[in-house]
């Protein structure tokens, strides 16, 4: 797939990946062997009939291809852009054993974007209203999927979103240069076109409780509030000025348009030397955002090595191309500030890799050697945890770990009218896995309500 020139793209927030041309898409589709036992489908958390959608592309029936995908996935233009395809469909593609796999993600994006060019939105058939109300809490990937599927089944579905704009992590978390806002808004318009209502500024747990929703006649509630609370290191200096948690840094830019301050009212600090701690997608997004805000040097500081980085492969490549530098085997111990309380240096300990840990990755072990990294801005991107606001407001809801909801693969919790899915049940994971459980939860909610008529 084509990418914009790194030296140009780091000066703005426009999308980096340009997508396939029609010619490229046709060529890519020809690569597909149309396997009888397609492995790619096994690798897809929502089991899209990949060979079938690609066969439509071969026939130049791009909208037919899109219709096929939408039977399984309500948000294809998003998944085409943010799925870690190398671990999913493409990772299983038999072609990949000899040469390279078919670029399934790029093709998915191609057919979804084709609809935008074609102009008209394809809306599937929606069943006649069945009169049952379902509430969906959170408008991220899990919530939007549940809502769309239930609306198609005829349910009167309302999504409650705490922020002023729907989309959840797609809006506040993933930067414009990776997933343009207009793409998300279009997908949300699609969900609304199915009859889904979305109420913004509506903080369930505060504005209204889950019990009040039941009292208002909602038959079931789906909780898809994400793991939207930042984890941090707990080291000295983490509350100095110019130390950001990645969630705040990205929210300021993505949701509040702080990169366009003072046209927009929300500011964000621009710094010369920025160190991002962590090596997941959020870390890459933060590093590349800092670069676009004008940083001269941006470092990824990670306690393991390049091999263990959890980020999507394409984003690591993009980050490298853009000049992001990597400090591996470096574990921050303290952020040291100046006399006025602003971050200046990170004191790190050099690590080495030891035995594999519970995650199967080799565990970083301290070496006792210390060194410093100069940075006038530090962005902490070491993962997410459960946000207690809603979860703790629901009495008797069974939780695990530090506040995640216990739910089965169909989203069932220990309370029969409450379903849950996405990061709030699994801990931080991917957009597509949230959508996968969203699909199954919609079916589980449907059978629960119809079984209790």
């Amino acid at each position, binding site marked *: 797939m084509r990418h914009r020139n790194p030296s140009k793209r780091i000066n703005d927030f426009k999308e980096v990946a340009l997508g396939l041309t029609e010619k490229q898409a046709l060529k890519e589709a020809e690569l597909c062997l149309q396997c009888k036992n397609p492995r790619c489908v096994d690798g897809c958390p929502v089991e899209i009939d990949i060979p079938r959608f690609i066969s439509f592309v071969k026939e130049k029936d791009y909208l037919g291809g899109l219709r096929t995908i939408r039977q399984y996935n309500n948000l294809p233009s998003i998944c085409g852009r943010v799925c870690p395809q190398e671990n999913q469909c493409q990772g299983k593609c038999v072609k990949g054993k000899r040469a390279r796999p078919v670029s399934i993600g790029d093709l998915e994006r191609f057919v979804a974007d084709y609809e935008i060019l074609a102009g008209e939105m394809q809306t599937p058939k929606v069943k006649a209203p069945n009169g049952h109300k379902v509430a969906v809490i959170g408008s991220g990937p899990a919530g939007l999927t549940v809502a769309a599927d239930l609306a198609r089944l005829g349910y009167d579905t309302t999504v409650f979103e*705490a922020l*002023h704009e729907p989309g959840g992590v797609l809006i506040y978390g993933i930067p414009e240069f990776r997933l343009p806002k207009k793409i998300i808004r279009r997908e949300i318009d699609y969900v609304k076109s199915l009859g889904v209502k979305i109420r913004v500024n509506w903080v369930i747990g505060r*504005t209204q409780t889950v019990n009040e929703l039941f009292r208002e006649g909602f038959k079931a509630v789906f909780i898809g509030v994400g793991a939207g609370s930042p984890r941090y290191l707990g080291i000295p200096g983490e509350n100095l000025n110019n130390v950001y948690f990645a*969630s705040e840094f990205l929210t300021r830019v993505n949701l509040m348009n702080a990169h366009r301050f003072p046209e927009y*009212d*929300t500011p964000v600090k621009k710094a010369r030397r920025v160190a991002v701690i962590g090596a997941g997608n959020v870390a890459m997004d933060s590093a590349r955002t800092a670069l676009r805000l004008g940083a001269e040097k941006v470092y990824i500081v990670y306690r393991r090595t390049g091999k263990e980085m959890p980020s999507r492969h394409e984003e690591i490549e993009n980050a490298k191309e853009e000049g992001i530098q990597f400090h591996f085997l470096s574990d921050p111990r303290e952020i040291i500030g100046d006399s006025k*309380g602003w971050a200046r240096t990170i004191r790190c300990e050099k690590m080495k890799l030891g035995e594999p840990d519970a995650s199967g990755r080799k565990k970083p072990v301290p070496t006792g050697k210390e060194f410093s990294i100069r940075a006038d801005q530090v962005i902490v991107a070491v993962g997410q945890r459960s946000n207690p606001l809603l979860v703790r407001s629901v009495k008797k809801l069974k939780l695990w770990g530090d506040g995640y909801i216990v739910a089965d693969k169909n989203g069932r919790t220990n309370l029969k009218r409450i379903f849950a899915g996405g990061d709030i049940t699994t801990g931080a994971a991917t957009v597509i896995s949230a959508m996968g459980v969203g699909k199954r939860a919609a079916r589980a909610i449907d059978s629960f309500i119809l079984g209790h008529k």
Partner: protein
Amino acid sequence: MFKILKKKILAPKVEMMVIDAPFIARNAKVGNFVVLRLNEKGERIPLTIADSSKKNGTITILFQKVGKTTESLGTLKPGDRILDIAGPLGHATPIARYGRCVLVAGGIGGATLYPVIRALKKAKNSISVIMGARSRDFLIWEDRFKKFSDDLYITTDDGSYGRKGLVTDTLKEVISNKPVALVVAVGPVRMMQAVSELTRPHAIKTLVSLNPLMVEGTGMCGSCRVNIAGKTRFACIEGPEFNGHEVDFKELENRLGFYKKEEETAYKLFKRKRQKK
């Protein structure tokens, strides 16, 4: 969209608004706040719910015009609308029968304290209120405070009304007279710090309501993190009230100055634009 129903100027640069927000008023509790955004380009700012009415479906906010957003809010009139308001947010103030309570309000802090005073009075506490202001003109809601307090003390920096001096001078006397079960202080950081330092040796339970910078206000970003007894806490979902004896006020003050430069830039541009008009 949230319609402004009433507006009143309470003091120089301090205004009060009554806003139509039935879904927020319905569950609003003492000590809660809202986050509002004026328009598409606006920032999200937290403001205490100074009063609310379930019956009328309204909330009351007080604000001091100190920067672009609050100045812009001040240009709105009854009938105008605010784009986004989310709430009620934050923990409710724990209301119980404590005994003798002393409430210390510094400047606009009175907005936060008023519902607390009313609720504590209703819970049959004996209430002493100390209000501090720069001068008589800056004193807000004296009548409301009087109504719910057993003793009301007023201090002004310039002595134009009440006693000349700081709230802590008066507090020192008030706590030495009779035993005090609870002190609640809301106002500028330095004032809350001074109050906490004063009550610490007496081991008087002291609540302060913190006002760190916030972005979304629902525990997602960590902008509002404060250091409480050496631990990082999020004021938006774990506060905004904390034990004053455990707050790292120095860090709070430092973090409040994080965007000073940007705040000044935005304010300057705003004033220039208004002058042109």
